């Protein structure tokens, strides 16, 4: 995307870009390149014995059934978190847009989970749902609902999905509400005069006009589900039980930091980066075309 009217200078923009490019090169691309290089090596934890093994680490990763499972698990997890974080947010934003009294108070109250670190959100939900000391776990037990995220994989998965989505609803809510409030009321009235019912007005006017917001939230939401949820999983389940909540990013951490298998972890990082880059490029190419900028 490029504006039609721009400034002619050539040197100035490069100067303006310099700080960001410098920091990015030193602290992102340089270590990133080293991480890529590490993916081609097999070494012991301390870096004392180092061997170049080419693509062996990648071959091992793809051959690992645990990795393939983690891949599909991450797709499922990300979809669930994104949907569970966006749909309630949209509903709540529509509701908040409708009320006249107290809209500010509602918005303020809804925003708080956004301020909470993912790891801390994980701790809060773990505390409520822990089978031994959790208040809600005890409530479920007394209602006869079997609940054991320590042993049951899908219970554990639900727990991390809910904790992750809970945190993100606030963020999506805010952006949706802002988007809704920027839609001119006259537009909706005109449609009403033309005889459009509320649902029709929503789908033909509101939703398309929300598309820049939705697109932005999808991109951010994907990155969130892929990466930031690491804190949630690390705090609650550590990828267990029996790898039920081991997402791709958690596996990178577990193999690299905990098990000190640096070659495999680096290879996984490279693959992960490729996936996310690919998905984002796709989004930009195909979805942004349909986004209505003014």
């Amino acid at each position, binding site marked *: 995307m490029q*504006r039609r*009217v721009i*400034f002619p200078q*050539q040197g*100035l*923009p490069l100067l*303006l*870009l310099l*700080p*960001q*490019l410098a920091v*990015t090169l030193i*602290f*992102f691309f*340089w*270590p990133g390149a*080293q*991480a890529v290089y*590490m993916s081609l090596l097999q070494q012991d934890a301390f870096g004392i014995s180092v061997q170049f093994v080419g693509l062996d680490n990648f071959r091992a990763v793809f051959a690992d059934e645990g990795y393939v499972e983690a891949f599909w698990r991450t797709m499922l997890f990300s979809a669930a978190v994104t949907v569970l974080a966006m749909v309630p947010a949209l*509903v709540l934003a529509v*509701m908040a847009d*409708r*009320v*006249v009294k*107290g809209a*500010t108070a509602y918005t303020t*109250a*809804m*925003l*708080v989970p956004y*301020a*909470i670190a993912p*790891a801390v959100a994980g*701790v*809060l*939900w773990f*505390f409520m749902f822990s089978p031994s000391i*959790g*208040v809600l776990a005890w409530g479920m037990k007394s209602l006869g609902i079997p609940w054991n995220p320590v042993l049951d994989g899908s219970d554990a998965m639900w727990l991390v999905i809910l904790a992750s989505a809970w945190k993100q609803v606030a963020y999506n809510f*805010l952006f949706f509400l802002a*988007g809704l409030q*920027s839609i001119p009321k006259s537009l909706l*009235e005109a449609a*009403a005069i033309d*005889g459009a*019912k*509320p649902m029709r*007005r929503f789908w033909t006017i509101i939703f398309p006009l929300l598309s820049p917001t939705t697109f932005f939230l999808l991109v951010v939401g994907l*990155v969130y589900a892929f*990466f930031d949820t*690491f804190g949630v999983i690390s705090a609650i389940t550590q990828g267990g039980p029996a790898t039920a909540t081991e997402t791709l*990013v958690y596996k990178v*951490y577990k193999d690299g*930091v905990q098990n000190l298998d640096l070659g495999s972890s680096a290879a996984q*990082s490279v693959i*992960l*980066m490729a996936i996310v*880059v690919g998905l*984002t490029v796709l989004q930009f190419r195909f979805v942004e075309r349909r986004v209505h*900028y003014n």
Partner: protein
Amino acid sequence: MNTAASVRESRGQAQGHGAGEWLAHLVLWLGIAVTAFPLYIAFVASTLTAQDIAQAPMSILPGGHGIENYRQILTQGLQGTYLSPPVWQMMWNSLQMALIITIGKIVVSILSAYAIVFFQFPGRMLAFWLIFLTLMLPVEVRILPTYAVISDLGMINSMTGLTLPLIASATGTLLFRQFFLTIPDELVEAARIDGAGPLRFFKDVVLPLSATNIAALSVILFIFGWNQYLWPLLITTDNRLDTIVVGITKMIGTDASVTNWAHVMGTTLLAVLPPALVVVLMRRWFVKGLVDSEK
């Protein structure tokens, strides 16, 4: 529904009457209940003793030990004097980190976004993608090499080492880029006709227009900086540099002792308080900044 009724309904909704209104309130209250519940439970836990909580289930009404718990963790830290600094010190570390990252990232990214949007130069798209790519790899996956770089530069155990690598990613640049793309061409043309150069234009037109965006981004970045977890854990060996989020996670799931949940929950609430305050107090500019960026 006939036309007149439809209009009445849409007007009615705008004026806050009708069935839609009370349903909206109901849904919103439900949303708030779900949002607030975990924090309420944390608050209750912070007013009980550790034994109360260990003897599950704990009460859902607050107890009477709140003041002594908070005093203990604020002045002495979790688990006694030697293992963690007092919580106020951890909060101070978090504050420094959050502020440095916020200001650093805003300055760096607003300049970059301006360069990418308002100019055309060779390598423009390359620069954009290079910067944008940094969104794809958070620090968790490049941690060991970044550590080596920081160590080579002698920045271990320093606030600089804590903050500099986190300024490297492109969140702000993307947001400003989206916003700058929506600035009307007429404004730019007017400035050029007046003979204003790009820097004048930036200072006189773009910056004021971006004020609410900057406010919004400040909130986002403050929270991002405050909530950092894995990087601070690795980069500091001196406990006194611990941030509060790191402090909390160090105390859960401990080795041979059982967590003092009353203290942990109290610390959790204290950890949530400043960023929550920032969000609440800056909410107006936060929302406004986003609303303006949609136009």
